[in-house]
């Protein structure tokens, strides 16, 4: 299938998910009540913001996962490998447990972003040779250290703080500030996608290994660091906005790559659109299945992503 057709197909799926995201939710609103007294119904307004947030978070995670899987040449790689989730979790938990969350709505996301970026920088600073494998190992170590510190904080926290930390870690797109969080994340996503499209050939070459890329004129070490730093930044911004949402950055790029091959120029935008559609649908499910309590979106992505991933895995093995 031609690239334009693939993109159109995924665009249609993402737009359909976005329309469903605005139409369906905890309550039934007739179309005639979408606008009341000349103003948008607050419920519809809430749905538009959270649907847009789900789209940006889902697309960012998918793009980030795609880069990680390409550079690390590992189809099980995901956006949080370089200590991002542990660092962000520690930052957010620190803000909640130590009382900084009282400073205002943006304090928890900012602390989460700070934690994620710090953990990521620590990985790059601690690993001397900065090959993909060593960065991966460094990421695992720093991530484990951050997770242990997070557990210590949770142990010393009060029950409400603990609930806040756990809910934050399960992921949600319900409380996203459209101006201070969503807009900068969307700009970063667009800029990262444009950069990756320009360097798609380098990403393709890196999937054959650093020596191969070097032989074809790519500074493999620098490119590896740049790509992993960019992918981690995308993950850090999403995690600060919506908590830790698993599976989206693992399953979506994996499926898109299996369906449409390994050319990153061809699959980058489809992966982003598929990630957006996947998370929007997961968010709708979380709202509709349990209208009052609402399921955390991270739980829904795991519930859908895990069986889909296993089915694909078994299907491809049976085929081979």
């Amino acid at each position, binding site marked *: 299938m031609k690239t334009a057709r693939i993109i159109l197909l995924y665009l249609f799926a993402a737009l359909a998910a976005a329309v469903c995201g605005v139409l369906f*939710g*905890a*309550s039934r609103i007739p179309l005639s009540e979408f606008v009341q007294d000349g103003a948008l119904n*607050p*419920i519809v*307004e*809430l*749905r538009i*913001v959270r649907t847009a947030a789900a789209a940006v978070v889902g697309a960012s995670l998918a793009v980030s996962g795609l880069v990680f899987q390409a550079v690390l040449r590992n189809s099980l790689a995901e956006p949080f490998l370089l200590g991002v989730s542990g660092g962000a979790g520690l930052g957010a938990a620190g803000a909640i447990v130590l*009382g900084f*969350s*009282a400073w*205002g*709505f*943006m304090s*928890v996301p900012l602390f989460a972003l700070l934690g994620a970026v710090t953990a990521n920088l620590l990985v790059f600073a601690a690993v001397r040779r900065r090959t993909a494998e060593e960065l991966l190992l460094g990421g695992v170590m720093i991530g484990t250290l951050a997770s242990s510190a997070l557990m210590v904080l949770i142990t010393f926290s009060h029950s*409400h703080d603990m*609930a*806040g930390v756990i*809910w*934050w870690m399960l992921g*949600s797109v*319900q*409380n*996203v*500030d*459209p*101006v201070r969080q969503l807009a900068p994340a969307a700009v970063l996503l667009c800029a990262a996608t444009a950069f990756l499209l320009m360097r798609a050939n380098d990403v393709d070459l890196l999937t054959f290994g650093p020596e191969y890329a070097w032989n074809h004129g790519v500074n493999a070490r620098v490119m590896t660091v740049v790509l992993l730093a960019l992918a981690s930044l995308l993950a850090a911004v999403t995690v600060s906005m919506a908590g830790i949402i698993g599976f989206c950055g693992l399953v979506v790029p994996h499926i898109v790559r299996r369906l449409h091959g390994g050319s990153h120029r061809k699959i980058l935008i489809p992966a982003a659109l598929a990630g957006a559609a996947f998370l929007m649908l997961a968010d709708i499910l979380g*709202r509709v299945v349990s*209208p*009052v*309590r*609402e399921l955390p979106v991270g739980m829904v992505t795991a519930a859908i992503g895990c069986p889909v991933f296993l089915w694909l895995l078994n299907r491809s093995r049976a085929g081979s």
Partner: protein
Amino acid sequence: MRRLFSFLFLLTVLLLAACSDEQKTAPGGVVSLSPALTELICHLGREDRLVARSTACDWPESVKSLPTAGDFAEPELERILAMKPALVVSNEFVNPKDADALRQAGIAVELHPCDGFDDYREWVALMGRLLECPREAESELARAAARIAGFEAVLKNAGKKPLRALYVIWDSPLLTAGADSLPDAVGRLAGLENIVKTEKGYPSISLEFVLKEDPDVIVWFAHGKDWKSNPSWSGIRAIREGRVLIPRDDSALLRPGPRIFDGIADLKSDLETLFSTKESAEAAVP
């Protein structure tokens, strides 16, 4: 031989008596790991029996001078064992293994739910027996019954439709008080109706549900949190129109202790003030 049998019989009787479930009085020091129970013990005039408290026990002011023996429902075993109290009281959330360890050391442990008015009545009666103050306990039970009957009579006579309320325990995620919770029971006596009817305990609910239910008032228990900086909250009409009530002393309302009835009276009066101010402000607009 006869003597031996007599001795064994006596020993068996003593052992059975020691293992009996029947509650006895507990002379000696008392450790309270629940703020509501600490308040109750002091209210019954048995503060002198308290030898330690939890870090959450902060009322009356005088108990702050007591040493701490753990957090709320989380005993520090070594410290308690060193104090050698006769009795440890808390709600049912204490780890059963910790409770067993205390019992094995010969310390009486009373762990029961402490969530609503029924639990409060049971605790009052139990404390009256254990702390040998039945008269004070009876008097407290009578006071509680009279105060509750008083609130119910006022509501009945007023004949007003209750205000629909959302109780915010935590803002992000939005944790609220469900159908069988203490804030729900307290609010009902103050003339409020909880918008969360199907969920029990302290559930995390969706913002869309709150927007759909459109509560008349929000009772804000999320101490130190600010709803104004969260843009997601601005869609709620009660927030936009300033119908948010921060209780004067949320500990009086969230603890099923002797101060709860004064807390309800304060909540009721603050609600009346909030709505009369709103009504007069609306009437002043030409």
